């Protein structure tokens, strides 16, 4: 018998390992499974939806009892979810919703990317009194967080005549590209720039380096806001170079397995469990940094 003693067999179809945020999420889920004595089947799709679809089918044919899915995009899950449902396997979605009939999955545990963008914009509006010339560093083109974080941010900014996005380029969610793009944009927009909004912390950290190299003062003269709340971002806030990060909590393990256990026990769950995202700025960074695990 391959089932763990007294535990369940649960499959986790992860999207990839492309960022520290993602790795932290994986860690949280694996650790929680180990803590609860659950036999976790882990699959890493390496950023490819087709791998993730295959993984879910393989979980189904192996006869897992529940599946946790961190979908890489919102579309395209209808069929596999139906297959899982037909096989009587509850599916718990984490960190992103899917465009499918809600009856096909048990629940969604996720942050609201649009809301994150909105929160970042609101913080900036408050801090600058509604006057800012902003450079936006987008995530990978087409990625849901990039699209939604842009959308939420623009919602607020567009309603504010004094705030303007003067340039918006993709930094591909990574530090190196973030730095390169910022270097290029600074020669052009350096004169007017008062704030930087980055779709994730890594790009913001790169941008901060570029600002410093150009002789600017990130955190003081140029405000830098980003999303995710990884440890390095808190360190930057403590150092005074990053102003604010909107936490997008990746530590979904406990919530996910609570949901799994409830589903297996036959309880009904709400269709959406929203993970509360918090805004952290320099004022609280020093206190919080000690508790950061990732």
């Amino acid at each position: 018998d391959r089932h763990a003693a007294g535990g369940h067999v649960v499959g986790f179809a992860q999207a990839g390992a492309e960022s520290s945020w993602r790795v932290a999420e994986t860690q949280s889920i694996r650790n929680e499974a180990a803590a609860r004595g659950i036999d976790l089947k882990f699959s890493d799709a390496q950023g490819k939806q087709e791998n993730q679809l295959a993984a879910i089918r393989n979980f189904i044919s192996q006869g897992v009892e529940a599946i946790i899915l961190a979908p890489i995009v919102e579309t395209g899950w209808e069929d596999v979810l139906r297959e899982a449902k037909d096989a009587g396997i509850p599916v718990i979605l984490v960190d992103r919703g899917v465009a499918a009939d809600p009856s096909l999955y048990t629940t969604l545990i996720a942050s609201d990317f649009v809301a994150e963008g909105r929160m970042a914009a609101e913080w900036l509006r408050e801090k600058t009194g509604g006057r800012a010339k902003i450079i936006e560093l987008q995530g990978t083109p087409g990625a849901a967080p990039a699209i939604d974080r842009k959308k939420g941010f623009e919602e607020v900014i567009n309603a504010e005549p004094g705030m303007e996005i003067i340039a918006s380029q993709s930094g591909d969610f990574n530090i190196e590209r973030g730095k390169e793009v910022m270097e290029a944009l600074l020669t052009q927009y350096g004169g007017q720039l008062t704030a930087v909004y980055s779709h994730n912390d890594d790009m913001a950290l790169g941008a901060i380096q570029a600002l410093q190299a150009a002789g600017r003062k990130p955190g003081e003269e140029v405000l830098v806001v980003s999303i995710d709340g990884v440890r390095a971002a808190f360190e930057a806030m403590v150092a005074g170079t990053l102003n604010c990060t909107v936490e997008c909590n990746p530590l979904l393990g406990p919530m996910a397995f609570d949901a799994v256990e409830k589903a297996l026990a036959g309880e009904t769950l709400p269709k959406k469990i929203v993970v509360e995202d918090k805004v952290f700025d320099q004022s609280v960074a020093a206190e919080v940094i000690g508790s950061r695990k990732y």
Partner: protein
Amino acid sequence: MNLAFRQRWLPTLVTAAVLLLLLAAAGALYPGFLRPLVFANILRNNAYLGILALGMTFVILSGGIDLSVGTLLAFSTILLARAIEAGLHPLPAAFAVAAVGTFFGAGQGLLIHSFRLPPFLVTLAGMFLAKGLAFAVSLQSLTISHPHFDAAASFRILVPGRAPLTTATWMFLVLLAAGILLARRTRFGRNVYALGGSEDTALLMGLPIARTRVTVYALSGLCAALAGLAMTLNTRSGNPAIGLGMELDAIACAVIGGTLLTGGVGSVFGTFLGVLIFGSIKTALDFHGGLDSSWLRIAMGILLLAFIVLQRALSRSGSPNPNS
């Protein structure tokens, strides 16, 4: 065994042996592995890849390479989704997408042939172009909903063991059979082998090089579009960001199946075996399920490597003329 027989079948036999060994090992390790359902899933999950690899095989046989297929697939899926969303019936939409893919490929082939450009660069440009076009069609993925399309997507034949053969699977199998015939039984197919074996020789033998080369890339473009179709049938959506690195997977499948990148040597059936090996390794890793992200990648690499080395060793010991 005579020389002719060996030369023709040995690589395929060796690849098949490696596949069987892989399946046997996976079956021994994971009790539920050797079931019709799992096979059907391997076919279904890799149908798109198989179709891509099919087109890629012809390109590689002709001595070229096509890096554009991954993003061209993405472009096809999103184009189809957009067309259906705009009210076009799925059938003409599918034909239109297939035509676009074919033209895209033929365009690359024309550039490569008429100006003697390196296929690597031209199709690299094609890769970027298709990516840009895909995002131009839609930045976000789109769900396809149309009764006829849904019917096609949900169509399946259950073979014993409740293993579903879906529309995408059938597409793959039918195209595979057509590809085998095309390569083996038609003048075009043989001209592809000749072109890849040596362009000079093919020219001096009076073979239609221009037509063959352009057709090969057109075929690859068509396969990419059809793979996109298979993908949309699988996901009922179009996604401009999909297809990342798929061209490399397709190349790997063709090469594992015994096709030489130098051109002129290989077979479509070998590529099929290559796709199955690739798919089985991924499935076996899913069945194992106990590796973290880093070890998953390492295990994937080591397994692929082990089977390729094994394949080399087997075919070397069986080959008539072991060199050096």
